[in-house]
């Protein structure tokens, strides 16, 4: 389970940016035109903040703690940062946030992370190994199952892209894609498109009409072959596959000087 982060950033040639910066910038670009984003603290916060300051001034981040319209004076360190509550537009109760906002279908984009993702965007955040005798116990669903089942679409950010994280079969399916959900329970209605966009250290996958995650772009210095090698399923490559346009100077300036000058997330 060695990370390939180094491989992607090490080449001395171009990257005058870190993987974190790249992931934040690319995520931000895919947020264009979206209004309400359900996301935790970390890279998604940076992506939404960048979108607010560039292409999407009206975009709004909704936190699972119930905070909406937060205006923290500095980047929150954790979801439990008191500065997220002070000066926010609203703090909803938990039944309202999960029941009415999330299940009610008000979220355009949910951001999720995972230890493992499969070809159709099902996610594992529960265990490596069997559930009742795991090799590694992971945190579990938290709100991920609800975010997957109720957002109009889901973005996944994967720092590590390798065959143990992009897998043919999940050790445990915590948050199923709508396709998997309908297969398991055809009578239970699903909502939204599931994972439409995966932003990894190597490139970007977008879902096709069948919900399969296909390689849409590769980052600078990465080859399609490299992506195939590091992915546990036979990768479908879009005809339109491109090289991800690198972060612009303005994007990097906003991230570094305006949004995260203390390098809370921009490691």
């Amino acid at each position, binding site marked *: 389970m060695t990370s390939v982060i180094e491989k992607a950033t090490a080449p001395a040639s171009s990257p005058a940016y870190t993987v974190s910066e790249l992931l934040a910038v690319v995520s931000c670009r895919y947020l264009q035109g979206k209004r309400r984003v359900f996301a935790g*603290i*970390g890279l998604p916060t940076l992506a939404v903040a960048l979108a607010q300051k560039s292409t999407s001034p009206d975009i709004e981040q909704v936190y699972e*703690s*119930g*905070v909406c319209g937060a205006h923290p004076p500095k980047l929150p*360190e*954790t*979801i*439990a940062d*008191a500065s997220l*509550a*002070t*000066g926010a537009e609203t*703090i909803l*109760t*938990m*039944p309202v946030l*999960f*029941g009415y906002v*999330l*299940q009610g279908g008000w979220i355009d984009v949910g951001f999720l992370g995972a230890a493992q993702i499969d070809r159709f965007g*099902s996610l594992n955040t*529960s265990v490596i*190994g*069997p*559930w*009742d*005798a*795991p*090799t*590694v*116990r*992971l*945190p*579990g*669903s*938290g*709100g*991920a*199952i*609800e975010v997957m*089942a*109720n957002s109009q679409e889901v973005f996944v950010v994967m720092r590590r892209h390798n065959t143990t994280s992009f897998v043919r079969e*999940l050790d445990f*399916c*915590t*948050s*199923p*894609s709508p396709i*998997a*959900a*309908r*297969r*398991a*329970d055809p*009578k*239970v*209605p*699903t*909502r939204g498109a599931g994972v439409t966009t995966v932003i990894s250290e190597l490139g970007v996958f977008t879902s096709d009409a069948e919900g399969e995650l296909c390689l849409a772009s590769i980052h600078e210095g990465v080859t399609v072959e490299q992506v195939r090698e590091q992915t546990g399923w036979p990768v479908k490559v879009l005809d339109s596959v491109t090289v991800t346009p690198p972060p612009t100077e303005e994007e990097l300036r906003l991230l570094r000087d305006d949004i995260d000058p203390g390098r809370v997330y921009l490691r």
Partner: protein
Amino acid sequence: MFSLQNAIGTFVSDGDVVALEGFTHLIPFAAGHEIIRQRVKGLTLVRMTPDIIADQMVAAGCVDTMVFAFTGNSSVGSLYAVRRAIESNGTGGLKLEEYSHYGLLARYQAGAAGIPFMPVRSYAGSDLVGINPQLRKVASPYEEDVETYVVPALNPDVAIIHAQRADRHGNVQSWGILGPQQEVAFASKRTILLVEEIVDDDIIRSDPNRTLIPGFVVDAVVECKYGAHPSFAQGYYDRDNDFYRSWSAISKDPQRLQAWIQEWIHETGGHEGYLTKLGEDFFHRLTPTPHLSSPVNYGSVL
């Protein structure tokens, strides 16, 4: 009005189903420590987000079963006592009942509302269904061929919650992130309330919409300043992020962890001793500058 010792001694017994709630905010650490101090055993710990307090209670041997949705120490590390009690190469023995956030919250809602179950809009296709037999399906009686997952009502023996303020009758006011405290208090057979301060009736009654839990639901009111440390109480003290970051190193080493519990929980003798050990000026750096709400006018007929 109870002392913390007396409240836990009176209302928490071996083998109880105990819900300690607070979502990142207002986590009842002082109450968890007192449970450890009183060496309560065999608890079913219900908590949406078992974090450091769960790690401590599991390490101290208080917990047989954990009912939860997300277990971890935010992004700053692992809960090694919990992991050792679960993972195949650990000592094992901790029973788990696993949900997602809304699944467990909906169990509290159904428990509070006296209904047998609550429908939720999730779980189809999740492997949680295979390992948690409480996640079941019901056919909608309104549409052909439509089913919904449901979760059963949960009525813990005891709810333990922390809030900013209450009057002596237990009318609770809280602000900032609210978590599932209102639901779990109504759902539970008994409720222990810890607050930063007991205030005059007039303060509470000047803003009745801020009262989230009426006094009749509360069995014990405990004044317990800084009782949510190392978590936070909005407006009173900020989160002690240094402590959260330090926890992995403590938790990873079973001996060091036991020594920590001995030193910071047993030897302090109580929450007062814990505060004394932190030191007089400890909370200075965590105290926010005031930022007051604008008042609203309720109007008066007088």
